[in-house]
């Protein structure tokens, strides 16, 4: 379990990025963190593995104040994939990037091979194993960075904007992997602006603005709130937009967050299709 108690942080002691943030993340949760650019989302996740330390307040990992742990110690438990893969990749082959982390954590040779192969396949980059990450596309490099952390299957996985540069199919693959890891009991925390990705896959959403948490709860409740949408600089998803617009003419169509199959059923009902 991770707790943040009244955590504040300012870059250079001046630029306030977090202001009195408190939250609790239980083992095995799958959580989205959403918010406007500069809301403090990245700063928050960097506190989870000690890359940043609070100016005031506490981060508590399994009942122990995280200040007693080094980043290396925290990294064993909490894997972080940063927003920009170029800040993370440094080796000359895709496979080496993934093997590196596993070696550091002391896994056996055959376990390393098995995990590397499995992770690369799941993310659709197996055929790029021998390539240098720097010859790959932005979306592919992002997946290499993800693979290097996902392969270690840390107890807590924090991903900063993992869907950037990913096409629809890659996003689905990523979601499948995260849900799979979550099913194995791993805690998954994802920072993202991708509202449709969140609605489809995440049960809990934390919304941030100006360094504070402004809403925290079930995704459907948090993202149905127009004030949260506005403060997080989100836009209403197309299907919700359509549902709202249809509601004015057909009052029994719900004007809330809507999944594709729900809207499809409603329209078929209205228009009497087969």
């Amino acid at each position, binding site marked *: 379990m991770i707790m943040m108690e009244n955590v504040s942080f300012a870059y250079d002691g001046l630029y306030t990025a977090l202001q009195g943030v408190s939250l609790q993340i239980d083992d095995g949760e799958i959580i989205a963190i959403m918010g406007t650019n500069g809301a403090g989302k990245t700063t928050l996740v960097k506190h989870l593995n000690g890359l940043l330390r609070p100016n005031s307040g506490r981060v508590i990992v399994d009942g122990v104040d995280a200040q007693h742990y080094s980043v290396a110690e925290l990294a064993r438990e909490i894997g972080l994939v940063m927003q920009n893969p170029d800040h993370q990749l440094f080796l000359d082959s895709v496979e080496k990037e993934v093997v590196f982390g596993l070696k550091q954590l002391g896994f056996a040779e055959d376990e390393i091979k098995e995990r590397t192969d499995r992770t690369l396949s799941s993310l659709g980059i197996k055929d790029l194993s021998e390539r240098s990450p720097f010859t790959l*596309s932005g979306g*592919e490099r992002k997946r290499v960075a993800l693979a290097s952390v996902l392969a270690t299957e840390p107890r807590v996985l924090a991903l900063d904007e993992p869907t950037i540069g990913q096409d629809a199919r890659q996003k689905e693959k990523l979601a499948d992997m995260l849900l799979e890891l979550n099913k194995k009991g791993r805690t998954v925390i994802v920072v993202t602006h991708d509202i449709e990705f969140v609605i489809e896959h995440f049960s809990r959403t934390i919304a941030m603005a100006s360094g504070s948490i402004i809403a925290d709860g079930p995704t459907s409740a948090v993202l149905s709130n127009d004030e949260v949408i506005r403060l997080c600089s*989100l836009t209403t998803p197309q299907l919700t937009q*359509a549902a709202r617009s249809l509601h004015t*003419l057909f009052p029994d169509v719900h004007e809330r967050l809507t999944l594709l199959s729900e809207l*499809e059923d409603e329209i078929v009902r209205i*228009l009497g*299709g087969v």
Partner: protein
Amino acid sequence: MPLIEINDFSFKYYGAETLALKKIDLTIEAGEYVVITGPSGCGKTTLCRTINALVPQFHRGYIAGNVVIDGKNTREHTVAELSSIAGLVFQQPENQLVTLNVEKEIAFGPENLGVEPAEIRRRVEELIELFDLEHLRDKHPHEMSGGEQQRVAMAATLALKPKILVADEPTSNLDPKSAEIILDFISSLNKRDMTVILVEHRLDLVSKDAGRVVLMDKGSIVADGHPRKILSQDICQDIGVGVPKATLVYKRLKEHGIDLNSVPLTGDELAGLVKEVSSL
């Protein structure tokens, strides 16, 4: 003469085993708004790099065929020569920002091209106003959020007054509202005759503004036409391109025997079409 003429162009990066671009034929007229999309790794970024001669002048490798931009063959002209014709904005703004504050960043390009100081000053002020950068004027790019950095990168690119804006996933680091602002801005530039080439995965945000979608897969162009035509084709799902949810609903309805009169690209369009059919 078209502004962009790509003829039977193929390219392989030095040291790579496969072609990044395969026999590309693409003609774009002045004033068009073209969205280029396709699965990750399909060659979109490489195609962007051909338009300002980064391929083949900076990124070297095997080339065949020709790319002619505003009458200039990129085999024979430098990136510097093309910089005032085609401006590129990249995926990662921080890879593009080179100076210590916003004013210097915007002035950097025109200074290097020897533009008059008074004119540079005028452009800097105009772009600071346009991109709402006043409060960041003296800030170091590294003190800014990704979204702010991208606005600065866009402003710096436009300071060279290019005829073509090539934007390679310029909004992927932005929150949706900031993304919408940038995309609305790109659309308004296009309405003022700027030729726009935009690489984007999130077609729900851009297809309503674009006049044309070019679909790429494995280094080739596999479809090219109006968004309503291209995005309603099965090939999009076949190659893994995310079509707008409203368009997906349209396709699902067809399977139920319901034919809306046109292909919707937004939620409001979808609702409007359903209303139309229901009142028949």
